[in-house]
């Protein structure tokens, strides 16, 4: 391709040829990453290199926010602080209740000689950023391998299941939210105990592959069933908002809304489940 201003008989590659070379490299990377998942090390390296910059920019963010016109008012901060405190207390109360439930549950399990499910530790992590990706619903957390976070661990907030850690870096982690289209959670309808699968649907969630005659109605709460050994049983996931039973399809159309503040919470809890701990090789606690 002739570009004006270029010497006529140059030995260097023309821009089009160079673009082609770089494009081939890019496509090779895309194939390696998307099909073979072989570039985790490169990702982790880049994240580690730019983590300090991200932190440095976040620190004076209040100032930057004012400059760029996003005025954060004092009152808004105060109300948010109050709300966070309240949520914190709620979370504390819920955790306390969880504790008692767990001990009670353990006793019961021991009685019926069931597979013993130990409790789980949790790490609180703040949302560092929300990547702009039209293909998925994800958030980045400010803690990673340094706090014991591993890929596969469930993430909750005070109100319910938020998602799952899909990539863990040294100082950060990527969480795929339950509303992501590619995300499925095995759940139970709390009222009837029936096991179903709930999928992400962009902003809400939906239950798929449910026969039309199934007993499910708006207002039903879906909790994790625990059969996948990823999510501990009993975590609140979603609430059914609408049930349609089309005559032309064998399946009911069930829309749900996540119970957790999937796009509102800023502090999330990563649960170190027994499953993940076992993979890590940590000694099992009695």
């Amino acid at each position, binding site marked *: 391709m002739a570009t004006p*201003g270029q010497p006529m008989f140059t030995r260097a590659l023309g821009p089009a040829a160079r673009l082609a070379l*770089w494009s081939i490299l890019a496509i090779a990377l895309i194939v390696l*990453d998307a099909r073979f998942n072989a570039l985790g090390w490169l990702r982790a390296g880049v994240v580690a290199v*730019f983590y300090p*910059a991200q932190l440095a920019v976040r620190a004076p963010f209040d100032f930057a926010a004012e400059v760029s016109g996003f005025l954060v008012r004092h009152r808004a901060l105060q109300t948010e602080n109050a709300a966070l405190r309240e949520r914190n207390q709620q979370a504390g109360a819920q955790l306390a209740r969880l504790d008692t439930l767990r001990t009670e549950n353990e006793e019961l399990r021991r009685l019926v000689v069931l597979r013993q499910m130990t409790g789980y530790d949790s790490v609180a992590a703040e949302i560092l950023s929300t990547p702009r*990706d039209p*293909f998925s619903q994800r958030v980045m957390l400010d803690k990673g391998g340094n706090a014991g976070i591993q890929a596969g661990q469930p993430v909750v907030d005070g109100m319910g299941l938020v998602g799952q850690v899909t990539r863990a870096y040294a100082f950060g982690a990527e969480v795929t939210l339950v509303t992501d*289209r590619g995300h499925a959670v095995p759940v139970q309808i709390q009222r009837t105990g029936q096991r179903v699968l709930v999928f992400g649907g962009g902003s809400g969630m939906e239950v798929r592959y449910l026969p039309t005659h199934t007993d499910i109605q708006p207002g039903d709460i879906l909790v994790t069933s625990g059969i996948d050994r990823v999510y501990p049983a009993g975590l609140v996931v979603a609430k059914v908002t609408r049930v349609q039973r089309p005559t032309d399809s064998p399946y009911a159309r069930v829309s749900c809304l996540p119970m957790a503040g999937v796009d509102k919470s800023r502090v999330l809890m990563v649960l170190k489940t027994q499953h993940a701990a076992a993979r890590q090789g940590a000694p099992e606690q009695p």
Partner: protein
Amino acid sequence: MNFDMPSFPPRIELRQEWRVIGLSLLLAFLLKQIPWQGWALLLRPDFVLIMLLFWAQRRQDGISFGLAFALGLVTDVQDGVVLGQHALAYCVGVFLVQHFQRRLAMFTLRHQAMQIFPLLLLTEVVALVTGWISTRTPQGGWVIATAFTGTLLWWAVAYAGKMPAARSE
């Protein structure tokens, strides 16, 4: 100097020029690190891409594809998308701007911005389509919105680049 016919700005000294390029790209990168949310996130122009395209147009030798590729990779990692998606898009953007370099230099800022818009749109579409092919269907068409905001940013950046202070460096 004749301001009606904007000619190529006089070349500034090479080492200094690279310092300015590096600083501007760093600034663009840092701007991107601000935790953008909600509408601001949707409308946030890709600062790094705009700076890259600006320098690709402004420097007679353009910007190397390697630099565009590397910056694209960083964007890929930070957005958590498939590696190579933005790298490819940035390279295509730089190529297009360099191809139309002389043509762009002929226009006034307003017309330049109007010429940049389709280039930005095409760059976004390249990123979108590669993501689409390599992963899955997007959840909304609002990604294109950044082509508009990016055009406005280009205008601002090109205007700043034409100011006397930037010339006499």
